[in-house]
């Protein structure tokens, strides 16, 4: 029914999809699987007209589709529920459901028809909600149902669900899948993107697995696979590991940073981990597992509600980033260097010195020379390639920008660093150099908490790996740097269904 052949989509620096194919038949539930960054979300966005493919062909019932925008996809009969919520909170359920084709006469909204259509869509799902209720009064799960109703309101033949159960409880998920089965039996095609393999195996008929933008399994019956085989397909990516110098951390060394049973306002529950000086702790998880958020809570940007944070054995109460830096020598190299890590319109020297202005200042003024001297030290040490220290940070390449972002925390003489996705958007060659640099920092005695969604990167750099899923730690592994074995263990930890308890998973 719906086929997408050899889709290619490039973003600056990244080939998100590189010849991926998806074939979905009517009256079936098709699972679209893949690791972080494999291209699932890009595929969904191409099929729904949010992005346009660079090349490739999308066909629906044998006719080629050219999707100029989301509305084209809807008119063609492709409905979607995106991963992030897309309802307008101040509007009623009914209005949200029909927003893309508001019934009207002479420019005035026909509320009667609007309600009738909304009731019809809600009835398809056998959901009992008053169409006049504003969205802001609904629970997350109810909102999700409204989005599905919205996707159905144009008699979509194909329904794409991107991680539909990410924010649902087990019960709510079960009910959702009952609805999915009912839609399938009514002859619709459902494409399900999910990282919860148990759910996928329970509901899906066929499967496509994406890896590095390619489809490595195309529309195969799911019964041909075991969960383990699907995982092998997802992670078996070609990877040349960089030979990094061996480091040895004495497990008896007291940890530089220790979290014990930490919960936060963001929903983290009982998070415990520790990092020793000279050690790299990898913090792996799917996008949205709450890793960056944990780092931000650690820096005092979000409130910690329970548990203790210890730095060098002493309980720490970090209220602001300034606190973290000046009192605890804890630095955070942000994931989003363009918005949060650098002042793009300022020279490199000023970017590096920003954390230590107070130390450099003479009578409240910052001597240019001191700034330049400091910058020169780190430009040398990190091998930052610049024309002069006065070059604007915005004109540097991604890798060099990241080094500048790192340099400012080193300048502040931090001994604990949180590195959040340090190599995102950096080309492969620079990446290897960066990995050596990070390993070098650990060898110099820094305690590093490495947040990365790049599995090979985590496996090659980390000494130990803590795996997070849905705001909780689901397991900790000692890294033996054997990529195949480690990656499978990690993916199993994540995909182990949330219905099983944490203890059992860790024991498995």
């Amino acid at each position, binding site marked *: 029914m719906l086929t997408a052949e050899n889709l290619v989509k490039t973003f600056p620096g990244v080939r998100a999809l590189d010849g991926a194919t998806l074939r979905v038949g009517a009256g079936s539930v098709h699972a679209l699987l893949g690791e972080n960054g494999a291209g699932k979300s890009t595929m969904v966005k191409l099929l729904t007209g949010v992005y346009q493919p660079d090349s490739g062909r999308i066909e629906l019932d044998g006719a080629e589709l050219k999707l100029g925008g989301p509305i084209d996809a809807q008119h063609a009969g492709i409905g979607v529920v995106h991963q992030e919520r897309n309802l307008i909170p101040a*509007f009623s359920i009914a209005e949200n459901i029909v927003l*893309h084709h*508001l019934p009207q006469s002479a420019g005035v909204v026909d509320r009667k028809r609007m309600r009738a259509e909304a009731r019809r869509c809600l009835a398809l799902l056998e959901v009992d909600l008053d169409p006049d209720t504003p969205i802001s*009064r609904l*629970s997350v799960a109810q909102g999700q149902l409204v989005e599905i109703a919205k996707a159905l309101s144009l008699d979509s033949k194909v329904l794409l669900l991107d991680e539909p159960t990410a924010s649902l409880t087990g019960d709510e998920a079960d009910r959702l899948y009952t609805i999915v089965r009912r839609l399938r039996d009514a002859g619709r095609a459902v494409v399900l993107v999910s990282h919860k393999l148990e759910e996928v195996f329970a509901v899906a008929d066929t499967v496509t697995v994406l890896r590095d933008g390619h489809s490595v399994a195309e529309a195969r019956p799911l019964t041909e696979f075991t969960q383990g085989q699907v995982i092998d397909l997802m992670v078996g990516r070609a990877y040349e590991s960089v030979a990094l110098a061996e480091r040895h951390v004495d497990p008896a060394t007291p940890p530089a940073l220790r979290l014990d049973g930490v919960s936060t306002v963001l929903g983290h529950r009982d998070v415990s981990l520790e990092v020793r000086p000279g050690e790299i702790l990898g913090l792996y998880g799917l996008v949205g597992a709450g890793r960056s958020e944990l780092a931000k809570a650690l820096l005092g940007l979000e409130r910690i509600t329970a548990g203790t944070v210890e730095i060098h054995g002493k309980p720490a109460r970090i209220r602001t980033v300034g606190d973290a830096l000046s009192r605890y020598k804890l630095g955070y190299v942000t994931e989003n260097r363009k918005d949060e890590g650098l002042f793009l319109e300022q020279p490199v020297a000023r970017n590096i010195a920003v954390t230590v202005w107070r130390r450099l200042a003479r009578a409240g003024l910052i001597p240019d020379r001191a700034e330049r001297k400091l910058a020169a030290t780190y430009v040398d040490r990190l091998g930052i390639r610049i024309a002069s220290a006065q070059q604007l940070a915005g004109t540097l390449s991604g890798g060099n920008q990241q080094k500048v972002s790192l340099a400012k925390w080193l300048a502040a003489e931090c001994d604990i660093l949180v590195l959040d996705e340090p190599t995102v958007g950096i080309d492969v060659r620079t990446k290897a150099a960066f990995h050596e640099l990070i390993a070098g920092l650990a060898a110099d005695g820094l305690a590093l908490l490495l947040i990365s969604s790049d599995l090979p990167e985590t496996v090659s750099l980390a000494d130990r790996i803590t795996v997070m899923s849905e705001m909780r730690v689901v397991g900790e592994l000692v890294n033996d740097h054997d990529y195949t074995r480690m990656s499978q263990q990690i993916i199993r930890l994540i995909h182990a269904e949330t219905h099983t308890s944490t203890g059992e998973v860790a024991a498995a």
Partner: protein
Amino acid sequence: MTAITTPTASRRYLRTSEFTLAVIAVTGFVALALATGGNLLSAGTLGAFFRFLAVPIVIGLSQMVVLAVGQMNLSVGALTGFCAMAAAWLMLKAGLPAPVAVLAALLLGLVVGLVNGFLVVLTRINGFIVTLATMTIIQGLRYGVNGPDTFQGYSAGLRKFGSASLLGLPVVFLAALAVAVLVGLFFARGVAGRKLLASGGSPFAARLSGISNDRSLVIAHGLSGLLAGVAAVLTVAASGSVNASIGDDLLLPSFAAPIIGGVALAGGMVSVTGTCLAAFLVRLVDVMQAQFGINPRWIDLIIGAVVLGAVLLGTVRAKLQERRSP
């Protein structure tokens, strides 16, 4: 999927900011009436009270329309003055009949508003900056119409419309209320109005529903300009004479009415009733000043403080609601 516990409609209404404002407005009015020994209720004073409430209501709505899409329009005051001067010029210097001049003023407001909208959409420059620039340009044009001189003695019919009363209320005030009802219907029922609010409330969700956010911006600015034109016509009719300073004192009130009225600065939510009630309150403060001969500087201070307080109150209320429904 669980049933929602809904308080009865009336209970919910008592909690709205509109209801709070209505109570404050009535209380304030009664208090002022008592304090002036009933002077406020004399036919002349009461007529003047409502006659000069017309423009603040319309100008508040003019600002509210752009706030709905998360924008601001700094040029509303200057544009009102410019349209008023243009209308007067057309009647006195070009010798055109009043209805033509009125239509021309409305059209001029609409066109300048659309220009604002297209500038915002095409340049992608923040609306605040764009309208700051157009405000300055319009101020120059407004002065260019007649220099420092005053226009007066134009169409008797229009001035009569400005001073006429119906059922004890000035016709210009009733006209402003009619405009408010139309704006209210536009946002409550009109397809374009709903799309505007969708764009303001969640641009990405709106885009996924096939709504053009650019189009919403242009419509909002165009409508804002048109309402400035309406304010200009009411000014010309009610004041009997216009000069190049008309509109200079409208910028703060244009923001005061919607903000005190509970309109979200971030866009996506409007309140016509709230805006009208807030304009009423501001007018009440004005009259208090006149009745007691308070230095006008104090009035600006009070209105400024009330605006600040309303914004703070709005933030606190939003936080409380967030805490109640996590």
